[in-house]
């Protein structure tokens, strides 16, 4: 089953690298929001003691909404291009889910590698526990990709437009967003990794629960 999922992932990557539609959408959205935020707020207007929390919240708002502007494409383009039926006949649902989930995860990681360093520089956000931050980002991306992928599968079969994806994903992901902001703030404030541990535990359990639900629900959503 893994090789089938890798085939799906490979197809998504080649397709995306050639058309670069999702990459552009997410990258440009993040960049424009970041520059707007950096220009408007700037690092010095926030009081020192509020900075770790507020900057963590702003970072995740940029990452979160950039993600919602691009993560739905992975299923929506299959329906729009009428390739969904061919894929449905050729591949097993689990392989499709895993392949597309990994693709969304890679998309998120690419977004973070691109935006987070830039954000720290522009907003003068000095993060004491970089290891903790990387952990929060990695596991947070997994949880976010899990929620986004199953919701993308759901809305791709509805006649709604892209906005439906944001309407459905945001409320589901709000608890995750709250925890991610907590974790990022903890990572920023203290160098040792133990500080982010409570947030990581919550993120891992949320990701686990979403993945299990997706594994059960996806075949129902994918096959009529």
């Amino acid at each position: 089953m893994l090789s089938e999922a890798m085939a799906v992932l490979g197809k998504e990557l080649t397709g995306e690298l050639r058309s670069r539609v999702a990459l552009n959408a997410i990258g440009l959205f993040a960049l424009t929001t970041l520059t707007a935020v950096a220009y408007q707020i700037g690092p010095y207007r926030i009081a020192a003691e509020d900075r770790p929390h507020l900057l963590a919240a702003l970072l995740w708002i940029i990452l979160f909404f950039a993600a919602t502007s691009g993560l739905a494409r992975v299923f929506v383009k299959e329906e729009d291009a009428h390739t969904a039926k061919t894929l449905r006949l050729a591949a097993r649902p689990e392989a499709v889910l895993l392949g597309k989930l990994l693709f969304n995860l890679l998309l998120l990681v690419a977004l973070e590698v691109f935006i987070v360093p830039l954000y720290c520089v522009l907003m003068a956000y000095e993060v004491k526990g970089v290891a903790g931050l990387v952990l929060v980002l990695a596991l947070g991306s997994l949880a976010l990709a899990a929620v986004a992928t199953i919701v993308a599968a759901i809305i791709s079969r509805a006649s709604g437009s892209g906005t439906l994806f944001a309407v459905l994903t945001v409320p589901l992901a709000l608890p995750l967003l709250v925890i991610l902001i907590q974790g990022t703030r903890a990572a920023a404030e203290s160098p040792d990794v133990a500080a982010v541990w409570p947030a990581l535990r919550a993120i891992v359990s949320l990701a686990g629960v979403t993945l299990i639900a997706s594994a059960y629900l996806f075949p129902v959503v994918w096959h009529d």
Partner: protein
Amino acid sequence: MTDKRWLLKWLLGVWLAVVVLGAFFYAPTARGFKGESARIVFFHVPQAWVAVLAFCVNLIASLRFLRTRDPIDDARAASAAGLGLLFSVLATVTGSLFAKVMWGSFWNWDPREVSIAILLLIYAAYFALRQAVPDEERRGSLSAAYAVLAFVTMPFLVFVVPRIYWSLHPDTLLNARGSIDMESRMVQVLVASLVGFTGLFSWLYTLSVRLARIRLRRQQGVEG
């Protein structure tokens, strides 16, 4: 009018009237509260309880629909979700009224308020999804899938978010609601109110399912 069901309904009518009177006269004024404001708890808590109960019924009906694909189960899920949304709106309104009296502002990001608000968004999104799917069998399976996802995130909303306390102003507010020590008479009224509201919910629920059943029979009747 001697039919057992009519009797039950009239009993419910009288029961809740007595609960209302009890809430204002039988129960003593709670200590440590401004005036009589604590009495709202007799309505706020049952509404929140009924909302969660409705979402449980929605989950069960959705899971059953995924197995049976019977449109009546989809109708049950939709009616339960509708009532759940109604009661969570009521719970939010009574909650913020209580906050206005106690803490002077309608909304002060108390973790419980954040959880209810996110719950509202999720089930409002559930109905946005239902609107966006024309084919009624697919509408059933997609909304059932989202209902399961929503239910799976609820524990995180109710348990994780309040424990990791997050608010814009760092000083933690005294959460009076959690710490009321209930006198026995207050507990009696509260329990009576819980029973009454549950009765009201089941009545509204059966009514709406019976209506849906008629609509379905009409639709199937039309094309034989």
